[in-house]
């Protein structure tokens, strides 16, 4: 067990953390702002991967443009979903969980009907498929790209939530919907936009995951439980999700270094349950958030 391989595991941990974080970002916003447990989040990620695939395969859009385009497409899907279904269920949290699970079944089977269940692949520019090596360290370039995109998105979200008028409105609605409404904030509109934003972020995650893994109708299912746990451990705030993903990503990498990937996941799940037993409100729960 030399120093180099431990360091490599730690760096891999950062990369794993960024993947978990980008999967959880959209969910954080939707859960944090609207308290909706969106079981269809994994399928929104899957839709992001498929919309990138579609743009690339049928229209020949370059990969880097597919990422923002997936954001827009999946955000629109999210908007329709919110207006058509979720908005009627805001005061029934358990029912949103169930209804969105129904949505996830429909989306998965719908995509399977259109595209078939054979795997699809996203093509990326040459330079992304190489490896970066730095002395004894080696990491694929694309994982660095994922890390950069994640960092960029976190920064953008932070600016949006803490530096703009819209962000103030979202945080006001989060803290007390009725009070915010009495100050003239249209909470229904805020919910709608945050849901669309969260869905769009899932789209971005999907267009990145489509490169890391193959694109399949069932690909979303593997992300949703994990993403949920990040959000719940983080307490539904942006900073919470960042820290939660960072810590669990590192732990996953280090445990996997000593045992194997599957056993590491088991350990993480158990540790999360134990952690939430003692801190059900998560890492950074603000006082006064509605729960």
């Amino acid at each position, binding site marked *: 067990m030399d120093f180099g391989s431990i360091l490599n595991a730690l760096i891999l941990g950062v990369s794993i953390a960024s993947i978990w974080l980008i999967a959880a970002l959209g969910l954080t916003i939707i859960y944090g702002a609207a308290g909706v447990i969106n079981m269809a989040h994994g399928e929104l990620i899957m839709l992001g991967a498929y919309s990138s695939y579609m743009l690339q395969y049928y229209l020949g859009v370059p990969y880097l443009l597919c990422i923002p385009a997936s954001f827009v497409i999946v955000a629109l899907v999210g908007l329709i979903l919110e207006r058509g279904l979720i908005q009627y269920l805001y005061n029934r949290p*358990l029912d949103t969980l169930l*209804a969105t699970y129904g949505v996830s*079944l429909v989306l998965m089977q*719908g995509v399977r009907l259109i595209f078939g269940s054979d795997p699809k692949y996203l093509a990326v520019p040459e330079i992304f498929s190489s490896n970066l090596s730095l002395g004894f360290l080696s990491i694929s370039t694309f994982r660095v790209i994922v890390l950069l995109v994640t960092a960029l998105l976190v920064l953008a979200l932070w600016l949006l939530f803490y530096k703009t008028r819209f962000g103030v409105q979202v945080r006001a609605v989060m803290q007390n919907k009725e009070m915010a409404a009495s100050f003239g904030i249209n909470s229904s509109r805020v919910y709608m936009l945050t849901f669309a934003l969260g869905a769009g972020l899932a789209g971005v995650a999907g267009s990145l995951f489509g490169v890391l893994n193959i694109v399949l109708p069932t690909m979303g299912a593997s992300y949703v*439980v994990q993403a949920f746990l990040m959000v719940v451990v983080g307490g539904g705030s942006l900073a919470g999700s960042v820290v939660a993903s960072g810590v669990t990503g590192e732990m996953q990498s280090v445990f996997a270094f000593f045992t194997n990937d*599957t*056993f590491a996941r088991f350990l993480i799940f158990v540790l999360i*349950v134990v952690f939430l*037993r003692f801190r059900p409100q998560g890492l950074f729960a603000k006082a006064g958030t509605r729960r």
Partner: protein
Amino acid sequence: MGNLYHNKTAQWLAYAAFFAVLAIVPMRIDDDFLLNQLATYGVYGMLALSISLCWGFGGILNLGQGIAFGLGAYGMAMTMQMQTQTESNPIPPLMLNNGLDYLPMLWWPFANTGLGIVCAIAVPTLFCAIFGTIMFRARVSGPFFAIMTLAMLSAFYTIILDRQAYTGGVNGITPPSPLQFAGVEVDPYSPLAYWTVFFALMIATVLAKLITQSSFGLVTQAIRDDAERVRFLGYSVAGYETMIYTIAGLIAAVAGCLWVMLVQYVSPAQLDVGFSLSMVIWAAIGGRLSLVGAIVGAFVIQGAQSYLGDTFLSTWLLILGGFFIVIVRFLPNGLASLLEAALGLFATRKPKSSAESNGAEPVPAE
């Protein structure tokens, strides 16, 4: 006269009629495979019943019922596997194939059939009791508890997948011969297997019905409607929640045992998130506030999946998902509430709104 739907005598009569119909089935059918399939529906009915008890009457949405079901199933599969091992060949092949040349301690109790079955039922029940105590004491409830059960389910799924030498990994355990119990071979395709499931389902249903009508059941329903108020009245909310959660777990564990008896097979797929969620779908569509409604929900959905599934293979999930969304959106208490409303039309005096306010309204998070 009030709504017949809420009349206790009428309810018991309906239950008796329901089980009478189920009892006639084996006399009418001489297709062994169909009988076996109907018996597996009975097992699914038990799972839906356990969800209805826990969620409809206890307010605890449990997305991890696959834990109790899966552990029960694994216990039974291990017992049946050990029955086929002889003195000269004491180690199951799945271990030898994975380079394990001794019987691990985990498997020791299952070498004895009686002890094995007791363990298969007691271990998941005990797990539910411990997990429930820990969670409910910390006042974890509502969507949070649902997510915790989901995390626990994923943990069990991964560990069973990972410990290949002990659990058979992704292939699971396939006991080569049927269960031998007290000198009798329970052939999965025989009426004996059907009757075993029938009586298990009937006993579970009657017990669950008695529980919901007891004062214990009334307190759990009060907790479902407003946990905080019940706590202020001096009841131990955590104790009641743990109890109803554990009873539901016990029913699911028995269902797991019976399921392996019928199909002679278990794999991590029984602990898959999708399967646990489909149990919730059965109960939700049938009606979570009606025990027999939930059972019928399981029959209808699984039956439709088997028969319509072949015709509409590609669109089945689409139909199921869409139907489920409609039910959650417009009929939160499932199809049973349609019957309730229909019988309500015949009631001479409008019944008090006790039934309507049962679950349609939001249950406060705290």
